[in-house]
């Protein structure tokens, strides 16, 4: 709980410690489908009530399913705090689901996938396709949006069992920021959530995978695209490893804005790319992860450039850091920007409530959030060189190249596999 009396509003986050990495096998996409069902009514507040109450209270809401957590967020004028607490406690207590609701919501989710993935020129390939190539364990490698077969197979029994296993108070964090006193909020939390039946805390599966030992590069046709793009991903070490913070800083140094090494090297400089993005833990951001996560670079490259040259240029930028490190001046500027960006992320009450919930989920302590700038500040040029060399080498990558129809010939045959640095096929 973080009080801020400067504006008569609040932000509220309920975070459940379950995401797509933990959904059951043969149910790819289930955690996300379940998130939708959380808005579809309870025995006390039937379908439609949640959104009507939200709108009628001047609020906004959303849900997000990430690999390790699912968050439900609301922001509204402070007059609506009690009813949002009631609504969240109510749907933590029980859902009222029938077959028709499940079927309709399944259709909506399929439309979401058609909209965001199938009709997208690149099929959101950095999210949807890269993990399958980069990782081996199902929890890490499957598509969290799900395929239609798995979605079709989902039953009301699956919904009940997922709810009973993961959607318990013992597995949840409630966080509020805004125009209210701390003691008031803790009292209200007790009042509304105190009686919600709890259960054992689910055991988190081991999803560790070490660094890849072999590179893999696949060229895939993108029938709806008109310009090529590629993504290169690497596995990263577990949370708490000495290279984790350096990799986070490297992500910013390589990708963030006009000062980014990849912007200056590939968009300016070599003029191979139209756009670069990516970084450490890109699907969740910052410190939102359990175990290990990934690092990626996504490059929209200029039509005439062969992909091998683009990957080679990416490797060269990373190798230069591994070889020479980074000068203190540049690293200092990156740290300043990361620290200021962190402050900006706390500006809205809603974002602050979410970040605090995340800090509890992953570090067990909301104040760990405030250690962020200090942790970033401790990273040295030698740390960056070491982390780049250890984790982001060409031999540890998995890359996918998306090529528009008719532009394949210049870039090699479809489905070709090989190492990124042109050292021959695997």
């Amino acid at each position: 709980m973080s009080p801020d009396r400067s504006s008569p509003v609040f932000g509220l986050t309920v975070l459940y410690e379950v995401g797509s990495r933990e959904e059951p096998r043969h149910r790819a996409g289930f955690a996300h489908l379940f998130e939708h069902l959380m808005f579809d009514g309870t025995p006390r507040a039937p379908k439609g009530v949640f959104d009507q109450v939200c709108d009628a209270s001047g609020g906004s809401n959303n849900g997000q399913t990430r690999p390790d957590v699912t968050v439900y967020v609301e922001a509204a004028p402070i007059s609506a705090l009690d009813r949002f607490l009631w609504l969240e406690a109510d749907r933590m207590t029980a859902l009222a689901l029938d077959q028709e609701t499940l079927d309709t919501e399944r259709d909506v989710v399929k439309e979401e996938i058609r909209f965001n993935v199938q009709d997208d020129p690149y099929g959101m390939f950095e999210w949807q396709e890269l993990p399958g190539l980069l990782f081996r364990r199902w929890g890490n490698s499957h598509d969290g949006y799900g395929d239609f077969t798995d979605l079709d197979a989902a039953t009301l029994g699956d919904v009940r069992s997922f709810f009973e296993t993961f959607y318990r108070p013992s597995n949840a964090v409630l966080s509020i920021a805004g125009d209210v006193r701390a003691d008031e909020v803790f009292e209200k939390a007790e009042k509304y959530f105190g009686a919600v039946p709890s259960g054992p805390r689910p055991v988190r599966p081991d999803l560790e995978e070490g660094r890849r030992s072999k590179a893999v590069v696949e060229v895939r046709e993108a029938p709806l695209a008109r310009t090529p793009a590629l993504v290169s991903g690497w596995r990263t070490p577990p949370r708490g490893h000495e290279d984790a913070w350096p990799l986070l800083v490297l992500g910013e140094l390589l990708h963030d804005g006009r000062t980014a090494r990849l912007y200056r090297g590939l968009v300016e400089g070599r003029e191979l790319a139209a756009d670069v993005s990516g970084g450490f833990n890109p699907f969740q951001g910052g410190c939102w992860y359990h175990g290990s996560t990934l690092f990626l670079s996504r490059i929209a490259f200029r039509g005439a450039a062969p992909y091998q040259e683009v990957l080679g240029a990416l490797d060269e930028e990373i190798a230069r850091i591994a070889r020479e490190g980074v000068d203190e001046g540049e690293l200092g500027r990156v740290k300043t920007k990361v620290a200021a960006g962190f402050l900006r992320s706390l500006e809205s009450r809603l974002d602050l409530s979410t970040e605090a919930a995340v800090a509890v989920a992953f570090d067990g302590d909301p104040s760990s959030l405030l250690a962020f700038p200090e942790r970033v500040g401790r990273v040295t040029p030698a740390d960056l060189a070491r982390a780049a060399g250890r984790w982001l080498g060409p031999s540890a990558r998995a890359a996918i190249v998306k090529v528009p129809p008719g532009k394949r010939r210049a870039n090699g045959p479809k489905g070709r596999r090989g190492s990124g640095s042109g050292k021959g096929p695997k």
Partner: protein
Amino acid sequence: MTPAAGLPALRTDRPFVVPEVDAFALANGLQVRTVTVPGLPLVTLRLVIRGGRSDDGPMPGFSELLADALEEGTTTRNATQLFDLLQDAGGDLTADAGTDATTVSAHGLSSSLPLLAGLVADVVRNAGFPADGVRRVKALALEDLETDESEPSFLASRAFARAVYGRHPYATVAPTRTTIRSVTRERLDGELRRRLRPERALLVVAGAVGPEAVRRAVEPFATWEGAGDAPELPPEAPGTERRSVVIVDRPGSVQATLVVGNVGTRRTDADAWPLDLAVTVYGGAFSSRLVQNLRVAKGYTYSPGAASTWLAARGVVRSWASVRTEVAGPALAEIFGEMERMGSEEVTAEELDRARRRESGLELLSLQTAAGLARELGELWLSGLGPGRLGEGVTAFGRVTAPEVLEASRRYLDPSRTVVVAVGDARRLGKALSSLGPAVRRRRVGSTR
């Protein structure tokens, strides 16, 4: 509302205390507003210059290229030096062309206010347009256009703007290839002086800074001046008086992307606020009729919605949905049906109250950050309204009545006077939309210059 036993009532609202705004003007006409937001040591600067795509006339989309080229450095600092300084201030700078305005924004740590103000002034006064930067801006604009043309939402917006605005300058949403190729350093420089001038501009500074510090920091703007004749404002956009259908062919498309609408209002029009509430009840909120119908009841689409925009020469009212192609016909029929219903009977008291509370609540939420306050002060100024109107949205919706909502709906949500754009696989789409009659034009992707 559907009953929910035990749901707590709303408590009393706490008043929104409108932050104090320090307003003054420089001798060259530049308006300056400061709003102090204590707390985090951050500051946002927003330089809003009247004229964006509205100024483009015979060079559709030129304003966007001008904005991009502003980020390529100045006569005193190249782009590398410029962005290194910004990074050191914990921030960034961007230039964007919109419909009615071009905006140069910078943000960073509040301790860097003088530096940030100096860099924004440098960019608009001394943009350098270096040869390699201009060449890259043009090359990237061509690449971006190529990429954008693969996106159904872009194709739909482009076709919709053309169909609604016709020959008006608002009819373009992105630079054309002809415009991109015609860009030269000389043209950029001439248009910069002509368009970006202090008497057409407002600078908003919002954050952990006081008015005195801002008055000192804006000193580099004092010598800013334009040259040549400033562009004229575009005439009022008439909108369409009939129903027309445009199909944009995107072979292989999995969905049909539908956009339906017509011109709307200015912010200062009498029916602006009533129309906003009408659109909220109709399709602007999750609990709205259209979303409940298309998504919740039928499961046709993940992404239905509606919105109205306010522009100086009249904005638009639009509905949209991306649906699987075989239900494009039924989805459009529902959209027309809901528009019709809005114009045939008054919204219920419960719907009106819900829409009022929603819109005023979201307004309140948008004003909780420095960036939100700066954006609203810029919007007010563009509409010719003073800083005293800051926060008016929190209360203005409460005064709108059901008959006013009905009247606005009849005028702006009339299914017989509307543009319908459908992007998708034309062969399958043509079949799905055959009930709309023969008034269908087909355009292929990329057919534009």
